């Protein structure tokens, strides 16, 4: 199966990925992002979503973890990373292992 990538985010920062061959979906707020993701989830196998949107859509995005595809991953936006992506990893680690083996805090 061939896959396609998409990126959902706010601002123009995501435009740079358009040149790299990623479909871009600029959105203004979480509500729009949620609608967009829902719409494109069937067509795109990998969806990048900017952190500021992802952190407010946590519960919604969790639903996609049941199946292998689509893969939805947060990426930092132009403001920089707030550590949301790491936080996702940390939560997964705590749930699975119950101890902190990576972050040591």
């Amino acid at each position, binding site marked *: 199966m061939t896959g396609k990538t998409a990126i959902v985010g706010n601002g123009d920062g995501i435009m740079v990925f358009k040149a790299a061959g990623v479909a871009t979906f600029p959105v203004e707020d979480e509500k729009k992002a949620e609608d967009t993701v829902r719409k494109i989830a069937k067509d795109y*196998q990998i969806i990048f979503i900017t952190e500021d949107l992802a952190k407010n859509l946590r519960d919604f995005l969790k639903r996609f973890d049941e199946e*292998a595809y689509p893969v939805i991953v947060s*990426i930092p936006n132009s403001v920089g990373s707030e550590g949301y992506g790491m936080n996702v990893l940390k939560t997964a680690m705590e749930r*699975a292992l119950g101890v902190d083996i*990576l972050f040591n805090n």
Partner: protein
Amino acid sequence: MARLNVNPTRMELKKLKGRLATATRGHKLLKDKSDEMIRRFTIILRETKSLREEVEQRLAEILKQFSVARSLTSPFEMETAFAMPSAKVELTCETESIMGVDVPKITVNDKKKTNALPYAFAEITGEADYSVAQATELLPVMIRLAQKEKAVRMLAEEIERNKRRVNALEYVMIPQLEETIKYIKDKLAENERASVVRLMKVKANG
């Protein structure tokens, strides 16, 4: 621990013994599965962490660079320059089974080396070229991160589910069965003693 609500008969005892054997075996198997899943999970988790660090750092740089480029060009020009993507990412999406969990497996097909920029050099500042080139380079790493991170999340879920199963067997099922078996054994022994005593009494009276 509450015992099961069954009749204290030999039939039931035999049935329960069978169930206990199955439960114990299942418990052992699930525990082994859990151990192996955790081992794999730890490996992938470490990989994901270093990938994420790399992506976040590089992406921050790219976006900074790009915002410089954006500030040097009018939004309209920028829009037109990027309106037509020239590159195309080709992916092959498959699934791979890690301990019975289907996780995504994505391979980036080698794309043809075409002119990577969607615009003419004269159109836009050099910062844009640089950030586009960087973004193109980073994309495979990001895709790898996506794949790993998904695997981490799916495995975490499965490990948790499995742990619940192991615990249910270890702390509920097995003790319950053991207690019920003991109860039936006691009851049967009691019945036996009662009948012996009854016989002795009948004989003494007669």
